[in-house]
């Protein structure tokens, strides 16, 4: 039976604090069930914000129920068939983790972004399920196109009537975010086939889904890619076999130049996009529609202009409103989908909230003592560690590496320039510009930290990433050069496998730095050390 460790009187002190939810310390750790990250009681955020969070929770379940109601039998069959789909039942719990400690404008902004991501996910899951041959062929089967999720779907908007599904994102990438043990399960399936276990766990997870033969059979073509890194290229063979049904479907390998900032590669990138369009025209029997394509790019520009405005606010004030984990995930999601109706709606809402904060000088994160940049590739199973950083130590991550992809505006007036800009966009895929496509990311880290007025850099250490392991010495050297200006905290993780570096190990590394180097006291002592190994 769960019992409060801190009494109500000790936590809130006065009725006013209880009603407004603005007590000095939230004592979030005491709400967790022993050994897990499950709440025994959801967070009390004051009357107004709890009502708001409750309404959001109701809406979330209604949205999820909406997926089932579209075709209950087919969706039930999908749940029965695919283990990965069961992870989505944990969505409300993931949302709880992403909203930890949020109050007022932060809660409103974060729920707007989360609502966008969930609506998009439900929509895509439905499009995948309705087209899946394994559940019975439908008129949608041929109208759906599968592509690798590190390949943004922009060119698919030139084929109206067809739906693009970035399949590995939903069947693999999302697993540890929703239920970390499922990441481990699929990694084990890969290792059981003889793949060495000491490499990046992301392609291992994707391969594991292929080993279990759990990718839905959708459409007649498969667009694959070499991005973002050589580890991901390893899984192309397994993915090709699984998704193209051993070569029964036509496959286009969308080859993205490795050296994104080499002027000659831009031309090659443009050539590759035209090749991709020609491939799709041939196999879909439909001409490329430049009008719908340009419209989509303009929508994408609109969203990106909004992002730039928000980043200006983060960089120059304390009024940035999205919390660190939601900000990062929202940008990653956007990168893959571009400016569709969900992102345009969220963009409008967010701009209003950000403007309100600036106008009224509202600090959405009042406990912030440090401003941080999170660099390198972050963990999935421990994605909300940067929110924990704020809630526990007052370290507010104002920007992160993954957010800084896909933000270049595309010139839609001139077709040649437009295709060049798009090639550039494809080349600057997540991680490519920052970890595996050269060494400029070393300098970008300091530049970005300066631009955003940070005093701390959270350096993710994915121990399975060979690209970053190769740069470790250079990084250490650079860190020494900049140690008078920035504190750099290495945060170890293993991307998709929570057994190799448990979440508590990552937190321990930060705790040691904050206590031994900075000699600071935690903002929330109940979050310093807790065991969540049996959680999701």
């Amino acid at each position, binding site marked *: 039976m769960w019992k409060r460790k801190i009494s109500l009187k000790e936590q809130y002190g006065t009725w006013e604090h209880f009603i407004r939810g603005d007590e000095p310390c939230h004592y979030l750790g005491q709400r967790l069930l022993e050994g897990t990250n499950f709440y025994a009681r959801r967070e009390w955020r004051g009357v107004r914000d709890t009502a708001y969070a409750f309404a959001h929770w109701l809406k979330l379940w209604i949205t999820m129920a909406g997926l089932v109601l579209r075709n209950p039998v087919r969706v039930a069959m999908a749940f029965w068939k695919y*283990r990965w789909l069961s992870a989505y039942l*944990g969505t409300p719990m993931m949302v709880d983790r992403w909203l930890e400690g949020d109050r007022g404008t932060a809660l409103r902004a974060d729920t707007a972004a989360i609502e966008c991501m969930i609506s998009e996910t439900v929509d895509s899951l439905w499009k995948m399920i309705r087209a899946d041959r394994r559940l019975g062929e439908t008129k949608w089967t041929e109208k759906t196109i599968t592509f690798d999720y590190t390949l943004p779907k922009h060119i698919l908007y030139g084929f109206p009537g067809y739906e693009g599904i970035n399949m590995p994102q939903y069947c693999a990438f999302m697993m540890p975010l929703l239920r970390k043990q499922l990441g481990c399960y699929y990694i084990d399936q*890969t290792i059981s086939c003889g793949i060495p276990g000491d490499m990046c766990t992301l392609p291992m997870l994707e391969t594991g889904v292929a080993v279990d*033969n759990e990718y839905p059979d959708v459409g007649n073509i498969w667009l694959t890619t070499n991005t973002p890194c050589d580890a991901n290229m390893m899984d192309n063979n397994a993915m090709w076999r699984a998704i193209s049904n051993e070569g029964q479907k036509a496959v286009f390998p969308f080859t993205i130049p490795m050296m994104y900032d080499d002027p000659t590669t831009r031309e090659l990138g443009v050539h590759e996009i035209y090749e991709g369009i020609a491939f799709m025209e041939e196999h879909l029997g439909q001409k490329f529609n430049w009008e719908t394509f340009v419209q989509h790019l303009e929508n994408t520009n609109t969203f990106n202009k909004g992002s730039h405005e928000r980043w200006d606010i983060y960089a120059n004030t304390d009024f940035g409103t999205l919390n660190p984990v939601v900000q990062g995930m929202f940008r990653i999601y956007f990168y893959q989908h571009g400016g569709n109706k969900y992102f345009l709606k969220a963009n409008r809402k967010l701009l209003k909230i950000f403007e309100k904060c600036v106008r009224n000088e509202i600090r959405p994160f009042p406990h912030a003592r440090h401003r941080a940049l999170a660099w390198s590739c972050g963990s999935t199973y421990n994605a909300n560690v940067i929110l924990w950083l704020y809630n526990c130590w007052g370290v507010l991550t104002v920007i992160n590496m993954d957010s800084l992809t896909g933000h270049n505006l595309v010139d839609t007036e001139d077709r040649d320039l437009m295709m060049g800009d798009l090639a550039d966009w494809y080349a600057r895929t997540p991680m490519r510009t920052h970890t595996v496509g050269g060494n400029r990311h070393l300098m970008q880290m300091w530049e970005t930290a300066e631009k955003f007025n940070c005093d701390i850099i959270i350096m993710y250490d994915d121990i399975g990433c060979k690209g970053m392991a190769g740069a470790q010495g250079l990084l250490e050297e650079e860190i020494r050069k900049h140690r008078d200006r920035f504190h750099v905290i290495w945060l170890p993780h293993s991307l998709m496998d929570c057994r190799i570096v448990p979440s508590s190990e990552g937190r321990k590394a930060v705790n040691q730095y904050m206590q031994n180097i900075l000699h600071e006291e935690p903002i929330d002592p109940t979050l310093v050390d807790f065991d969540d190994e049996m959680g999701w």
Partner: protein
Amino acid sequence: MKTAAKLLGLGSAALAALFAVYYFNLDMKLVRSVVVPLLDRHYDSVHREQTL
């Protein structure tokens, strides 16, 4: 008038029950303790042709 009062009462009771589910995290406790273990048992019982 009586019907409206009844509807209001029912609506309030439903909302209170839903709030209890929300606050005590009963939805996720159910998913974690009952739904997912049942589904996992089913997935584990399915014979899979593992290929690479």
